């Protein structure tokens, strides 16, 4: 039972001052085992804050990140699942399922987590699942101002993943979930 937090596109301090208070009150250290962040934090202070939530932090580079050392893509294996991480501004058209599916096949992962569109989406295709956690601060994207703050928490338990979607709508936190199973176990390598 591994809890993985996926979030990104915070754009602190340029487009948003901080995470919403209701999100911050829920995110306490000690509960989450891994954090994967799509990018665009943008400053070191945000990195440090995320590090206090959980020491195992994975970040990929967004186009506005001040730290240039983050990689463009990253793959992580957690339990039976391989997760891929990429900011998503590199994949054109932005947010297009087929292009993201190509990236997923390239990285050879079960779950691909990308951002950049600041909209939560979760797609399934033959190669696996693509999740976009949206923007955790509700910062405006390159395309639209209409953004609800959102992030994703994945509960990986054996071959089953429950994806909890946390969204701040009209000042209230709404939680939904998505359930899916993997059919075959990952071969160890």
């Amino acid at each position, binding site marked *: 039972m591994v*809890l993985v937090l996926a979030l990104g596109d915070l754009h602190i301090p340029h487009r948003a001052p901080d995470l919403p208070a209701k999100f911050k009150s829920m995110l306490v250290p000690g509960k989450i085992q891994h954090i994967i962040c799509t990018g665009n934090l943008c400053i070191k202070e945000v990195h440090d804050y995320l590090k206090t939530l959980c020491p195992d932090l994975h970040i990929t580079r967004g186009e506005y990140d001040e730290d240039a050392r983050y990689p463009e893509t990253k793959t992580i294996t957690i339990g039976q699942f391989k997760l891929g991480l990429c900011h998503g501004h590199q994949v054109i058209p932005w947010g297009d399922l087929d292009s993201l599916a190509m990236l997923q096949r390239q990285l050879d992962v079960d779950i691909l987590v990308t951002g950049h569109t600041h909209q939560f989406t979760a797609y399934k295709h033959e190669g696996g699942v693509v999740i976009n956690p949206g923007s955790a601060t509700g910062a405006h994207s390159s395309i639209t101002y209409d953004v609800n703050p959102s992030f994703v928490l994945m509960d990986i*338990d054996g071959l089953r993943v429950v994806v909890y979607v*946390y969204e701040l709508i009209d000042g209230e936190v709404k*939680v939904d*979930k998505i359930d899916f199973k993997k059919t075959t176990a990952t071969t160890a390598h």
Partner: protein
Amino acid sequence: MKKKVPDWLNSSLWSSAPPPPPPDSISRLDSEPAPAPAPAPAPPPPPTEPPVPVPPPSVVREEPPKPEVVNSRNGNGDDGNAWPERPSTDDISRQSMLLAELSKKVINIGELRRIAAQGLPDGAGIRSTVWKLLLGYLPIDRGLWSSELAKKRSQYQSFKTELLMNPSEITRKMDKSTISENDDSKSTSGELSRADITHGEHPLSLGESSVWNKFFQDTEIIEQIDRDVKRTHPDMHFFSGDSPDAKDNQEALKTVLTIFAKLNPGIRYVQGMNEILAPLYYVFRNDPDEENAASAEADSFFCFVELLSGFRDNFCKQLDNSVVGIRSTITRLSDMLKEHDEELWRHLEVTTKVNPQFYAFRWITLLLTQEFNFADSLHIWDTLLSDPEGPQETVLRICCAMLILIRRRLLAGDFTSNLRLLQNYPSTNVGHLLYVANKLRTTPSG
């Protein structure tokens, strides 16, 4: 009338060096008062050394038992004289008595208590069975044993499966009951549908009744339990070290304590409970009967609950200052000491200001497991569990006896030396100690 120290207290008997054993005719069973305990003029086992310093613990317990003491059931009356040479004979006789009692169809608990109060032999799994009987885990009707054991053990198993489930599984169970399993291969691509969460359960939930929240709160307690279990009896191979057995035992202790904490949200886990569980688990695990040893975890859980039921209030912080709390128990000990040995009491509490809380707290809450070596503490527990007055009362008497036994050194010491002495109680003849504790049962007339 001024209460002076009773004569028997001033005898050389009670110095901390183990003296020759007290005269024979003293016994717990006899109601007549003991003759003047002046062992020096009438040392019972003249030729050989008293079995006191002999290592095998069962022999150390030798001194009081007298054949005449025990009921007519015991046939070997002449062994009393022979016991110094072959102390094991008496041990064997006690063992046979116990076995005889245990093999009866309906066990007489009062009888068993009396025999057990003198100490139980270490072998033949007697202690394991007797403790289970004394704690009410096994019914006195032998015929019901197997059904009772099976019932309780399966109950423990169901506790384990229920309570040790992690929240993912719990939420999955809740889902199954509300929604039927979705066939998720029906759409090969496309947007994944978002489903409502059941009962507002999500991992970051801060709700009081949330399964997840409880899980994370319990995690802290489980960590605490883990730390304490690792520190239990580090000198014993049974409990610590790298052997797979030690690991299994530690796991078992952890599971028992975790389940107890989950079932008792009022008191949860308090440091020290591991020390009370340890002897129970040790005894049951070392039962020569295979089945019993395998179910030691379940058995020790129920016996632990039973044993703790009398002491729960000691572990509850809020009750510390109340009438049933640990403070009042310590005050009772203090009063008992005052009653039996006013001089010592005055010296300790008034002159040297050694507050009994400094030493008695650990003595009482941990039932003396920390003050003596493991084998001795098992013998003390024999007496504790078998006394009809109950462990709480008995432990007070034993603590009082512990103080009285070293009165000479205490009276001569100041705050520092007394405190040091009491917090590292010197090793002593346990049989002795229990004898004195028993004497304290009747109020001395001064």
